[in-house]
């Protein structure tokens, strides 16, 4: 590498500074969370008497176990169903190329740029009529539907590139369409299915608007939705608000650190394909 020494170090200093700016907000709320509840601490001052109990307090006030269960339930209801139905649709459109595939693809792709806030109003009234308003199902059903444009598009992109010889060979051996799908192509599509699963799990965990509009009870919401409600109650008690925010962030951060490579790759591929 022919990069001058001086440039090397200014460049690295620049990147380090950016990393510091990225991290600083997390450090600031962590330190703030250790100050006595009800006080208004300043910037980055380490408290004289760190109040670790704030985390316990926030854990109780925010009903963390209930929230974790609720969020996990929603993710487990949304992600597997979305994966199965979008993989099936992607398979039919990309590999079987059924008559009407082009129209179907267009129909799904059309939904890619649709902002959630654009269609939230009728969803609210539909769910009131269906009697699922203020239940977890109120988040689960529209979320599965809202993921379909991206998920079908993503899986179709995988299947459309599969060589046809595999399917032809299987057909000669007398495989039915279901065999072809379940025994041959799903195992081959493990990588894109896993990435899609990671993406949809993060998006579901962080989903706010649907939770805010469709579920009044914070304990029936996603993590992000519950955090919104928590902020409403504790806006004046900064240390407790920060402690609660950190607790709600911890699961996401742990998952990110464990699976950082897969998550970054999935998020990047997701945007490139979408």
């Amino acid at each position: 590498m022919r990069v001058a020494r001086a440039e090397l170090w200014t460049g690295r200093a620049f990147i380090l500074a950016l990393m510091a700016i990225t991290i600083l907000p997390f450090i600031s709320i962590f330190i703030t969370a250790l100050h006595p509840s009800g006080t208004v601490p300043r910037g980055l001052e380490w408290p004289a008497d760190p109040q670790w109990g704030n985390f316990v307090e926030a854990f109780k006030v925010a009903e963390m176990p209930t929230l974790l269960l609720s969020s996990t339930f929603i993710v487990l209801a949304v992600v597997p169903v979305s994966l199965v139905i979008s993989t099936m649709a992607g398979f039919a459109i990309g590999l079987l190329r059924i008559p009407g595939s082009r129209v179907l693809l267009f129909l799904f792709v059309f939904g890619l740029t649709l902002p959630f806030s654009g269609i939230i109003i009728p969803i609210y009234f539909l769910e009131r009529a269906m009697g699922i308003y203020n239940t977890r199902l109120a988040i689960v059903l529209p979320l599965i539907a809202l993921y379909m444009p991206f998920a079908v598009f993503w899986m179709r992109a995988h299947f459309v590139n599969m060589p046809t010889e595999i399917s032809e060979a299987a057909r000669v051996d007398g495989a039915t369409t279901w065999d072809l799908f379940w025994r041959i192509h799903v195992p081959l599509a493990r990588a894109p299915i896993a990435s899609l699963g990671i993406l949809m799990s993060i998006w579901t965990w962080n989903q706010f608007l649907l939770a805010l509009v469709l579920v009044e009870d914070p304990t029936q919401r996603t993590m992000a939705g519950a955090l919104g409600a928590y902020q409403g109650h504790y806006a004046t008690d900064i240390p407790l608000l920060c402690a609660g925010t950190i607790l709600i962030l911890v699961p996401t951060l742990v998952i990110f650190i464990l699976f950082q490579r897969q998550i970054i790759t999935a998020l990047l591929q997701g945007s490139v394909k979408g």
Partner: protein
Amino acid sequence: MTSDNRHVAPWHSRWILLHRGIHRETIIGWLFVLPALIMYVLFVLQPLVLTIHYSFYKWNGVGPKTWVGLKNYVTIFQVPDLIGTIFNAFWLVVWFSFIPVGLGLVVASVMHRVASRRFGSIARTVLFLPQVIALVAAGIIWGWLLSLPGLINQILKAVGLGTITRAWLGDFDWALPAVGLIGIWVLLGFCTVLLLTGITKVDPSLYESARIDGADWFREFVTITVPLLRYEIGVCLTVTVIAALAAFDIVYVSTAGGPGNSTAVPGIQIYILAFTQRAIGLASALAVMLMILVVVVILPIQWLSRENKI
């Protein structure tokens, strides 16, 4: 005659078999699409049509609907607070989109030049962090940092700029840029990492020969990085522009559209109109305008970045 029959029969039966086969295949294929399609039609396309339908009515959500034609759309153009949300959304594009993409290009190219493998991967992880946390959390964290006793003002005081400290999110002139700052923090890492993967796909010999010729960072940036990353830049712009125009979470928790209407974006205004003021028709008209706006802005970006790309 007999030979004719012999010819016709197999041809005929094979045709039926083939036809029946195709027919069966088609039905099975459509059965594969059906679950996804049903969900999509029920919870996306149906609401989409209903939004358009509501937008032509005056309705409070409970009583009878009154047909008003295009009046809701006219109202949006006439009331400064409503049309202002569209302008605010465009302002937000500068902060959420132009700055992260521009700065991301610079950071990615610097990283590509100076970072070792190990340092590069740590930097990637750290810079990407804000992208995975909930936008609501980002809004809450920055709501505190940008408040009067928050970190930003502490830093300003420490460097002798104590006179300009203020409650940034509560200031009529500064609230929108302050919200924009949150967007930069969230989106810069994403853009950087995406553009960096683009750079690593560029033929390394191009950079090698540029360096042998003694090209400095800036020359390399202008002549190689930017032109060859057209596609990745397009992707970044698409994602970030949608994030700006459809912004909701960050704005809702950090300012809720205030002070006044200085940070009200369409998403927030739709929510307020529909769920606190019960002006369903007006909210729906704004929703329709937002959806059209996103498509109208995104299409040219897609078209420009994919052009000349096989």
